[in-house]
């Protein structure tokens, strides 16, 4: 387990290195497709051959999935970046068979948006509370509902309910043949196989989830304000004894100045 966790952490660190580096390379006018392409190149140059899902980049109002009707709307578009836009970079590399899935939100440019700052505080509170929820006796279904209530009580919309199966998170596992390309989009065949071969619904932390909490989860609360969305995504471990903890504390959203480039 320890050895596997180290490898998951290595994959997660690489994913955050990619988002942090690409964040610095963005400029006014770059498209979501071009930004996602940079994430793809960054990971492929770092021994990644396949992804749990294709790298995503969303800018401005697309960060709150406005008018998204099919899963293909999640794919990066020709939307161009403007100063003051909220940006979400979401990348899920498979490194030596170990899946990471991270989300990194920030504002492009120096502008401060009070609503985004409020969203940041809520996300950090959720990050603090989530391990406790996993360690308590409440079910995963109740965790989903509790997070949903908290988002709405704070005046935001629950955007992760627009994800496929409305997931707040999903399990990640060691996958075979990670050195082969993913082929299918937006989710590579590794992810489809990994989810389906373990029963699909027990792997997806949605509003109807049933099953054990034990395992490694990619948790991704995604909240929406008036014209923006914000999220974090990182790996949470629940061990056999029921202890839950974030895989790493070295993540961008815990660093000073999070949300600004």
């Amino acid at each position, binding site marked *: 387990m320890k050895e596997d966790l180290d490898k998951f952490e290595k994959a997660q660190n690489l994913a955050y290195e990619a988002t942090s580096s690409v964040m610095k390379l963005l400029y006014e006018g770059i498209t979501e497709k071009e930004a996602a392409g940079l994430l793809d*190149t960054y990971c492929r*140059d770092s021994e990644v051959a396949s992804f749990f899902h294709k790298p995503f980049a969303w800018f401005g109002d697309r960060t709150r999935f406005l008018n998204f009707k099919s899963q293909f709307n999640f794919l990066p578009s020709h939307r161009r970046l403007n100063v003051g836009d909220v940006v979400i970079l979401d990348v899920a590399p498979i490194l030596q068979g170990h899946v990471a899935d991270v989300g990194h939100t920030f504002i492009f440019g120096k502008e401060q948006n009070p609503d985004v700052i409020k969203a940041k505080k809520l996300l950090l509170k959720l990050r603090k509370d989530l391990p406790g929820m996993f360690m308590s006796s409440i079910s995963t279904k109740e965790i989903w509902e509790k997070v949903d209530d908290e988002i709405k009580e704070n005046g935001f919309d629950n955007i992760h309910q627009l994800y496929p199966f409305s997931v707040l998170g999903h399990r990640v596992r060691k996958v075979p043949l990670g050195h082969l390309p993913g082929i299918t989009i937006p989710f590579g065949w590794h992810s489809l196989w990994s989810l389906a071969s373990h029963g699909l619904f027990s792997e997806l932390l949605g509003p109807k989830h049933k099953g054990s909490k034990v395992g490694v989860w990619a948790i991704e609360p995604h909240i929406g304000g008036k014209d923006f969305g914000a999220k974090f995504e990182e790996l949470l471990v629940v061990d056999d004894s029921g202890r839950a903890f974030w895989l790493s504390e070295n993540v961008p959203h815990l660093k000073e100045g999070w949300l600004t480039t």
Partner: protein
Amino acid sequence: MSEIKAKEIQCRGLKTSYLVGVPKSEVKGILFFIHGCPDNHLIWKNLMNRFYKEGYLVLAPNLRGIDKSEAPTDKKRSRYSKDSLALDHLELISHYGQDLPVTVVCHDIGSVSGWELARRLGPRLKKLVAINSPDPMTLFYQFRKISQVKKSWYIAFFQTGKIVELFFDKYKVPLAEKTLKLGRYPEITPERVQEAANLFISFLPHYRAAFAELPTRFLKKTSLVDKPMLLWGNKDPFLNIPTQKDLKTVAKFPEIRVLEGGHWLFLEKEDDVFRLIQKN
């Protein structure tokens, strides 16, 4: 080399060596030089010094695997891809200034990353100056003419794995000398011939990656580079002068300037090239 310094930066786990000159006073913009084969970044030293004195921040990396720029240990071709090389260059540029306008100057096979970098700089791109340096798609269209096939047969030979490596082991010095002579390199010394001979083999992965990427470039539409300037020596023995038609899939409103000279035009006609790069 006056205020031009040799430095190194880590790009996704690999060391990249480069030359840089940062003016002490106000910076007019970035001049980014990408060398070709069989050269290294020192080929730009004269132009770099001149632009540095004009107040430009000048940068010239060694391409992947050349001199102190590390090659991937597993011979991974992706580190030589246009996307990967352009990302290396973007990381280097962002290290020195996110907001400064950038003029990209490329020569020979430096075109693979030069044209791609120009596409990825967005509004920060001031101008692309391609000196005897076609985008690979342009070169592909030029292969319709038998004269270009005759000039570029060596690119096909470079794809032949071990055979070409064995050939280089034995004949790299005469090959380097012939290349420099044919290309009208201005001062051919034994040291320069030896240097070119030693560098040749490091360029093979670049030619192979550029060739391997051609099919995907047909499937994927790329954006056009706005108003690039192409400077061409009329006596270039390796590359035909491209036409507007050859450039239609890669450039919008290209400006083609043909000067009296060979393959290393920026060495032969340094004053003219210096003046034309500065031209708005």
